């Protein structure tokens, strides 16, 4: 009798182990975001968005009956941590796709590994360099800085601001923007008379701004993510510089306004339509998706969504749509994403084998901060 019980117990254990190792029921995707550290304003809405979508999907029957699980990891903006997170997701959790990371630097760190392991990576970061040259398994949903710079140059030309100063953060995002400015400004007829940089953790840009002020530019273009640009705005105000200040899409969040205070007034930057969703024309193709996302996010979290959360929405929806068609095979998901046309939050996507970003400069509108609020410039 005792032996029979033991055998039965062992068989039961084996059965449980067998089915969980098989894992056929739950679809697992991984997510790597900068949830802590200076870039938390990007990672937190991204994480919140992913969790919101997963909850919504599981409430309405999952993906073709399969439960969806998102394993979210924090890289704190650090490339080493991002790498470790990716390794764990791929080798230990065996996810079929990874959404994120939030930053250009961390995305570059993870891209090679994801490509080698043949797991689709859908980054939420802006650097064009992530998908140029195109790697078959690496995609991104954030608008590219190629298009952001193009949009800014259009604005400068339209307003006759042809002698400008360029100031960037010395991280991957800032350097990528500088690179694009160097490539595109001659063709656009804009002359950059001063190139200056500041460190990620710098607390005072007076020296750089004093030098820029000496060269008398018609506008200052500042390329970075918080908190640097907020300090630039504050320092410019303190130095009584009245020069128009144009920034990058890296400041398209409330945190910038909170940090810069009064100094944020008048700052102009390119952004996705989400932050000015109430000013979008009725016949805009993105309107429905934007309003839907904004309403759902506000209902669940009690605050407005922002651009970065939008990038995560696009990334997860790409994977989810692919999975609805082809299941959870990473190679098939990759092929499906590459064919997708998606009316998303960051823009209208049209992926192709040569374009793994799928967006153009019309994914942006120019926005100005007035009295702590965003106003779309037409």
């Amino acid at each position, binding site marked *: 009798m005792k032996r029979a019980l033991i055998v039965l117990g062992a068989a039961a254990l084996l059965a449980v182990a067998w089915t969980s190792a098989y894992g056929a029921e739950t679809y697992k995707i991984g997510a790597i975001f900068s949830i*802590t550290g200076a870039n938390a*304003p990007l990672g937190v809405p991204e994480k919140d968005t992913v969790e919101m979508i997963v909850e919504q999907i599981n409430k309405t029957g999952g993906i073709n009956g399969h439960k969806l699980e998102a394993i979210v990891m924090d890289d704190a903006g650090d490339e080493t941590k991002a790498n470790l997170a990716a390794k764990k997701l791929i080798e230990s959790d065996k996810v079929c796709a990874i959404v994120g990371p939030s930053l250009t630097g961390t995305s570059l760190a993870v891209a090679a590994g994801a490509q080698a392991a043949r797991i689709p990576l859908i980054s939420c970061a802006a650097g064009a360099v992530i998908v140029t040259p195109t790697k078959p398994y690496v995609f991104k949903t954030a608008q590219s800085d190629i298009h952001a710079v193009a949009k800014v140059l259009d604005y400068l030309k339209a307003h006759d601001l042809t002698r400008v100063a360029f100031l960037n953060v010395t991280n991957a995002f800032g350097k990528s923007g500088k690179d694009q400015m160097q490539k595109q400004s001659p063709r656009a007829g804009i002359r950059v008379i001063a190139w200056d940089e500041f460190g990620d953790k710098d*607390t005072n840009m*007076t020296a750089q701004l*004093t030098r820029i002020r*000496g060269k008398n530019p018609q506008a200052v273009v500042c390329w970075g993510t918080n908190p640097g640009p907020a300090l630039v705005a504050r320092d410019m105000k303190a130095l*009584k510089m009245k020069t128009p200040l144009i920034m990058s899409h890296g400041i398209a969040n409330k945190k910038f306004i909170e940090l810069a*205070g009064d100094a944020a007034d008048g700052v102009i930057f390119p952004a996705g339509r989400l932050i000015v969703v109430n000013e979008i024309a009725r016949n805009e193709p993105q309107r429905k998706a934007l309003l839907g996302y904004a309403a759902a996010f506000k209902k669940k979290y009690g605050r407005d969504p922002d651009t970065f959360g939008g990038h995560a929405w696009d990334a997860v929806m790409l994977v989810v749509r692919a999975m609805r068609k082809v299941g959870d095979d990473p190679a098939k998901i990759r092929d499906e994403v590459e064919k997708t046309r998606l009316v998303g939050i960051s823009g209208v996507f049209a992926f192709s084998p040569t374009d793994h970003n799928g967006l153009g400069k019309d994914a942006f509108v120019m926005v100005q901060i007035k009295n702590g609020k965003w106003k779309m410039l037409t």
Partner: protein
Amino acid sequence: MDLASQLLQYLFAGITAGSIYAIIALGFTVVYNCTEVINFAQGEFVMLGAMVAAWSIITLHLPLPIAFLLAVAVTSVVGIGLGCVVIPPLKRASVVTLIIITIGGSILFRGLAMLILGQDALPMPQFSEGSVMVANAVIMPQSLWILGVGLACVVLLRLFYDKTMVGRAMRATACSKEGALTVGININRMVVISFALAGAIGAVAGVIVAPISLASFDMGTMLGLKGFCAAIFGGLGNFGGGILAGLMLGIIESFGAGYISSQYKDAIAFVLLLGILFFRPQGVLSGRKRE
């Protein structure tokens, strides 16, 4: 904008940053004089002052002066805590061990600040509006506050050491532990007081710099290291030297960023530190020899 105004602008920015480094150097000096320990948590005292003040203004809606006092009080208590931890090993352990204890303290404080007060940068309002123009160069109002408060700090510290019983007891301890023990001074209490004082000084520096630099849980590292650099430059244990060195460091940094390269601004302080440690570890501005 002509050369003179540009030079003046760099000078003002340099004096502003330099005053902060000078105050932080004071914190190092107070602890070193009493215990011969280099308190590497000094930068975190600055961070705690800034974070507590910014957080209490934003979340508790406290008026600025109250927030200032709260920040100084909280950080002094943290300083007392660190001082108490340092006392038992003080007699027996080597200086290196004690320094490592303070490094451990700094890591702990940084982690706690991140967990409790958050990882976002916090803004702080300027103390007053209205800048001053001198020959086309702008002096930000906060810079004047930094200079004024810094000066008040130095004067108060001087009065403390000269006129109060406790201050004189601390000076006695710094001169000779055995002598102090003989006349009945409680050394342990002196150690705790020196750490509390360092905490208060650090907090003051943090509150007055936060309107310019924003408060964040990781701001202490750089500031602490640069203040340490100033303290060494001026001769460890030398108050006047530390202040002068702090101001000089700020000015050199500002001109370096303006005329040489803005990318390597931080490197300037560290290159100086390395140079001093190699060639003149007793400090450039002190006359004494030191082991």
